[in-house]
């Protein structure tokens, strides 16, 4: 039997948890944007310089027909062309120019992706349960939190493409994924320490298990010691030192999954191998039912 805080105001608590999550992600998101901005800016400046260095070569090129018509010796023409190639550093530019363009475009795509994900992630809180494409929602959360995991782990996703929409509180669903993802990253960070060892791996899979949508989030951390296993979902229980995350991830996930969605959450853990959190959301209230409900055809 779990004890809840008396006079708990779930709406304002959820809102503040969400704001807290966004606040904690903000510096990481800024970093994820600043890095591409750095090289996009430099590359565009480089392309500008290239143009400046090409201009004289282009002027000489445009004078070529005149040279040819005046009957210049082939050797002279060859020298002129050779000088143009050297002066404008064409051998270098032929590779660097397209790479600078390509990498800049890739940087722009990366910035757009994270801005879009941030927007999806921070949609205004709603009390309405809506059908959510949970594969897309997980992808969004993984993107927004990239800076939280990329230094310690790779994230591998294995989504069931035929998974029906899950009717849930969209913001809270993201919160669950974020909590468990950050929790997994911290578990791996504890193992790899200052990073002299190789990165770990976080695996996120989605599957349909009969009338449940199941999400598994696995880490390659050290596993949960036996003495702590009973308390993983307890609020206010944490193994984290101050300033190293709240350690409240599993407790928050529990309250969202079990209390707000009638879902299930449990974990499998093995010392030295890692931990898998298994979250199940009910599918009975399918997207179709939800649509009918919205239209007042069923209640």
């Amino acid at each position, binding site marked *: 039997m779990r004890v809840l805080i008396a006079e708990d105001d779930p709406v304002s608590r959820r809102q503040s948890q969400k704001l807290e999550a966004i606040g904690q992600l903000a510096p990481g998101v800024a970093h994820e944007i600043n890095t591409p901005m750095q090289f996009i800016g430099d590359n565009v400046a480089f392309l500008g310089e290239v143009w400046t260095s090409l201009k004289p070569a282009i002027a000489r090129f445009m004078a070529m027909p005149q040279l040819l018509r005046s009957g210049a010796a082939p050797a002279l023409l060859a020298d002129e062309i050779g000088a143009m190639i050297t002066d404008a550093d064409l051998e270098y530019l032929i590779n660097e120019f397209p790479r600078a363009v390509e*990498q800049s475009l890739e940087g722009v795509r990366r910035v757009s992706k994270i801005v879009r994900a941030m927007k999806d992630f921070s949609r205004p809180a709603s009390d309405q349960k809506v059908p959510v494409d949970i594969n897309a929602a997980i992808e969004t959360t993984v993107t927004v939190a990239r800076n939280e995991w990329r*230094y310690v782990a790779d994230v591998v996703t294995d989504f069931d493409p035929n998974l029906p929409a899950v009717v849930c509180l969209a913001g809270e669903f993201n919160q669950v994924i974020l909590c468990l993802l950050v929790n997994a990253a911290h578990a791996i960070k504890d193992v790899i320490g200052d990073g002299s060892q190789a990165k770990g791996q976080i695996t996120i899979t989605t599957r349909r298990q009969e009338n449940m949508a199941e999400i598994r989030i696995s880490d390659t951390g050290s596993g949960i010691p036996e003495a702590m296993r009973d308390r993983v979902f307890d609020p206010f229980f944490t193994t984290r030192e101050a300033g190293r995350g709240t350690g409240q991830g599993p407790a928050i996930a529990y309250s969202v999954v079990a209390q707000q969605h009638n879902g299930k959450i449990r974990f499998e853990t093995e010392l030295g191998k890692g931990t898998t959190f298994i979250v199940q959301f009910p599918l009975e209230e399918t997207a179709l039912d939800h649509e009918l409900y919205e239209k007042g055809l069923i209640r």
Partner: protein
Amino acid sequence: MKRRILFVDDEQSLLDSYRRSLRDQFEVDFALSGQQGLDTMRANGPYAAVVSDFRMPGMDGISFLSRAREISPGTLRVILTGVSGIPNAVQAVKDGDVYCFLAKPCPSHLLSELLTLVLCLDCPFPVQP
């Protein structure tokens, strides 16, 4: 003769952009991690300056620079990072003994001017970016 500078960052695109922007002013080498940076310093050093990211997978920028100091005490250490904040800067100065703490995005012409300036070793003044 061009001064030799080593850049350490886990972003290939970023290293490529430095290479393009600074090749006229400096002779630049690159490493994708702190460990690779240390190996490069041992194999190809000495460098006039080493410019490192703050957060990288594996060894972070501070650990890298403090080890870099052991390998080559005379090499100027600079942090160029998207992670800002005074505590990070203080830690960098304290543990990495860094000369400059620069925030991304820092346009390459500023970076180039700054490096040129601080590499005038006779210049007795600390330089603000």
